C-alpha cells in the first residue's frame, strides 16, 4: 500500500457521514479542537471548505494552517485525505 496512514485509509473507505473532524488524517485532538472552536465541528464542514477552495492544494493548506495551525505534514495529510475521499465518493 502507499504511504498513507491508517486514519487515511479508514476515512477514505466509506462515506464520511457525521464523522467528527478528528477523523480526518492529519487532524488530531488538538487541531480538531481548534477547528471545532472555529465552527468546523464535523468533517463535512472541512470538506465544504475544501470544496469552496476548489480543491486547490495551496489554498487549502494555507487555510488549514491559518485556522488551526497545522504543520506541513498535517496539512498534506489532510489535503490528501480529502482529495482521495472526493475522488472516491464525489
Amino acid at each position, binding site marked *: 500500500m502507499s504511504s498513507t496512514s491508517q486514519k487515511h485509509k479508514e476515512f477514505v473507505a466509506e462515506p464520511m457521514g457525521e464523522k467528527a473532524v478528528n477523523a480526518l488524517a492529519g487532524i488530531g485532538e488538538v487541531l480538531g479542537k481548534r477547528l471545532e472552536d472555529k465552527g468546523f465541528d464535523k468533517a463535512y464542514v472541512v470538506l465544504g471548505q475544501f470544496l469552496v477552495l476548489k480543491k486547490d492544494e495551496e489554498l487549502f493548506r494555507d487555510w488549514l494552517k491559518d485556522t488551526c495551525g*497545522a504543520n506541513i505534514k498535517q496539512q498534506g495529510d489532510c489535503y490528501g485525505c480529502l482529495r482521495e475521499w472526493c475522488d472516491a465518493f464525489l
Partner: protein
Amino acid sequence: MAVPLTDEQLFSELASLGACPGPVTESTRPVYLKKLKKLREEQQRSARTARRDVTRLSGGNAAGRKCSVVGFSSDESDAEAPLTRPGLAGRTYRGSAQPAARRQAAKPRSEASTARHGAPRPERALDGAGTEHIEGKSGSVNGRSPSPGQDNDYSDSDSEGLRVPELRKIYKVPPQTRARSDRTEESRGRDQDPEEPVPELHRPARSSMLPPGSEDHRVTVRKDNHIHGNRFSSELRPRYPVYRRPQPDPNLSQNRVPEDELLHQFRAEQSSSSTFSPHYLSMVLLTAACLFFLLLGLGYLRVRGSGGVPGTTAHLHPFGSDFDSSYDQSEKALILKLLLHLHDYLALIAGQHDCGDQQHLNRSLSLEEASAYLQAHNKKFDDFLLTSLEWIIRSGQDVGIRLKAQGGDDVTDVSEITYLESTHPMMPFSCRFRRAFLSVLSRVLLLCAVVGSVCALVCYMKYRWRREEEETRLMYDMVERIVDVLRTHGEACQENQDLQPYLPIPHVRDALIQLQDRKKKKMERVWSRAVSFLSTNESRVRTEAQMVGGANFMVWRWIQPPSLSCDKTSTPSKVWQGKAFPLDRRNSPPNSLTPCLKIRNMFDPVMEVGENWEVAIQEAILEKCSDNDGIVHIAVDKNSREGCVYVKCISAEHSGKAFKALHGSWFDGKLVTVKYLRLDRYHQRFPQAQSCSRALKASNHLQLRPSEDH
C-alpha cells in the same frame, strides 16, 4: 484603493492576476488575501527589480499601506491598535483599530510580522499544540527567531527585511531569561487579556464576535491566525507603545504567565496534595477505625468480665439503712469485709470453673467450705457469716453472691442455704478474651452459615428455573418438528394411498431424536412432555392405538385437511434475497484493506428464536461466499443490537471478494452492510481466530440462496 478590500474587489483582483478564485467567504478570505499579496509581490518583483528597496520601503508605506491593508492588515491594525489603546489586552487586535498614526511601530509591526512569520514556523512551535506553548518551551521561541526572511510564503518578508535585525535583538535576550521572557511576554499577552481563557485551544471565538468592519474582520482573522498559529505571537504585540528592549526583569517578577502559573500551581498542588491529602485522609480513617474497634472490643470484654464493682466495700453496701443502724462501725466493717472476701473467693472459684480449670469442678461452694475458708481468713468471720447471709437475703439485691438451697435456687431463709455461688465470676484476662473471641467467632460462623445456605438456595432455584425454561423451549421445538413430520406424512398419504395415514409414536421419536440423545434423561422428559402436549393441545393430531406390524402401538394421525395451508414455517426465513445496489467505486472502498470484515444487520437478536440460529447465519454467510474459500473464522455476536457478524479471511484479497459478495445484499428482509476491521483489533476480540487457517465450508443441507444471477 480603499483601505478595506471588499470581497468583490478581492475576487476581481485575483481574477485579474490569473488565479481562479473560488468564492470569497468569511473563511476563505484570509487565504485569498495572502494569495493576492503573493501575486502582487511577484508582479512587483518582476516589474520593478531595480527599485527594490525603495519600493519595499515605500511599498511598506504606501503600497505597503495598500499591502498592509491587504496583506499586512493585521500588522497595520496591530501596529495602530497598541497606539490607540495601549492599555488593552495585548491582543490589541481586539480594539477597534483606528487607523491612527501608523507605524511608529516599526518595531511592533515588525514584531508582529515576525510573529506572523513565527506562525509558519510550523513544526517546532506548533507540533503538539498548546501544551508545549504553555510549558514555555524556549526552544520554540528560539526556533522562531532566526531569519524571518527565510520564509518564502509571505512576501512581506521582503519588506520586513529591514526590520529583521531589530527584531533579532528582541530575541537576543539573555538565554536564561528567554524562557521567562517567553512566559512573560505570553503572560503579558495573557494577563492583559483576562477574557482569554487558559491556553491551549482557546481559540478566539471572540474573533467572530467582533464588529463586522472588514478591517476589524481582517484583523480578527489575522489574529486568529496568529493565536492559533502561534501563541507567542501575542507577546509580540507589544504593549510597548514605544519600542524598547523588552524588559524581562520587571515583568518577570510581576507576571508569570497565568497559565504557567496555574499549571505550576496545579502541579504543585497535585504533587503535594495528591500525595498528601488522600494519603493523609486514608491514614486518618484507618487509625480511627482501628481505635474504634479496639475500644469496642475492650469495652465488650470488660463488660463480659467481672461486671460491676464487686459487691460491697467498706462504705458502700446495698443493705440499706437498717444495716447501718443495727451494727456498730467495727461490726459493720467486719461483716462487709467478710462479704467481700466471700464474694471474691466465690468469684475466683466461679471464674476458674468457667475457664475450664479442673480444680473446682463445682461452680458453687457449699456452706461448710465457705465457712471453713472464711475462718481461715479471720476467726471472727464465722460469727457473722450467717448474719451476713441473712442480710443478703433480706436485701434482695444482687451483690454478687447467689444463695442456693438444696433443691434449686432462691432461698428464703438462712437455714436453707447449702450452696453459695458467684454471679460475677472473675476470670483472668486471657480466659475472658478467649471466651469472648470464641463466642464472637461462633456467632459469625453461624451468620455465615445462614447466609450461605440462603445463597445456595437461591442459586439452586435459579438453576432449576433455567433448566425448566430450556426444557420447555426444547419441548416446543420438538412439538413443532413432530407436527412437521406428521404433516408431511399426511400430505404424502394424500398422494400415495398405500401409506397408512398415521405414524407410530416411537417411530416418530426415533426419527427425530438422535441416537445418542435418546437415553438422556433430559430428552426423555422433553419427549414425554411433547407427547402429552400434543395429546392435549394439538387438535390436528389424534392419538390412537393401532396395530402396526403385528404389535400394538400408540399412533398419531394427522387429521388436518390439506386445504389449510397457512403455516408460517413452510418457507425458511433466512435466505439471501438479492442485491440492493451495484457495488462500484462510490460505495465501496477501492481496494480491500484488511482481511477482517464486520457484517452488519444480519439479524435482530431480539427476534431470533430457535436454538441454532447463529449456526444458520454462519451457514448462510458461507453459502453466499461459497466461491471464496478463504474464510477461516466466523463469529456471530449474539448480543449486538445491530446484528453483527465478524469474519476473518485468509488474505485481504479474499475479504475483498467476500465484501463484494455480501455488501448491499438483502438477507431475511434486511439490508446487509460490510466494513473492514483492523486485524489487530479483530485478534484482540477473537484471539482464537489467530490460529485459524482452515477455510470453512458451508454444509450443504440447506440451500438458502435463490439461483445466482451474478
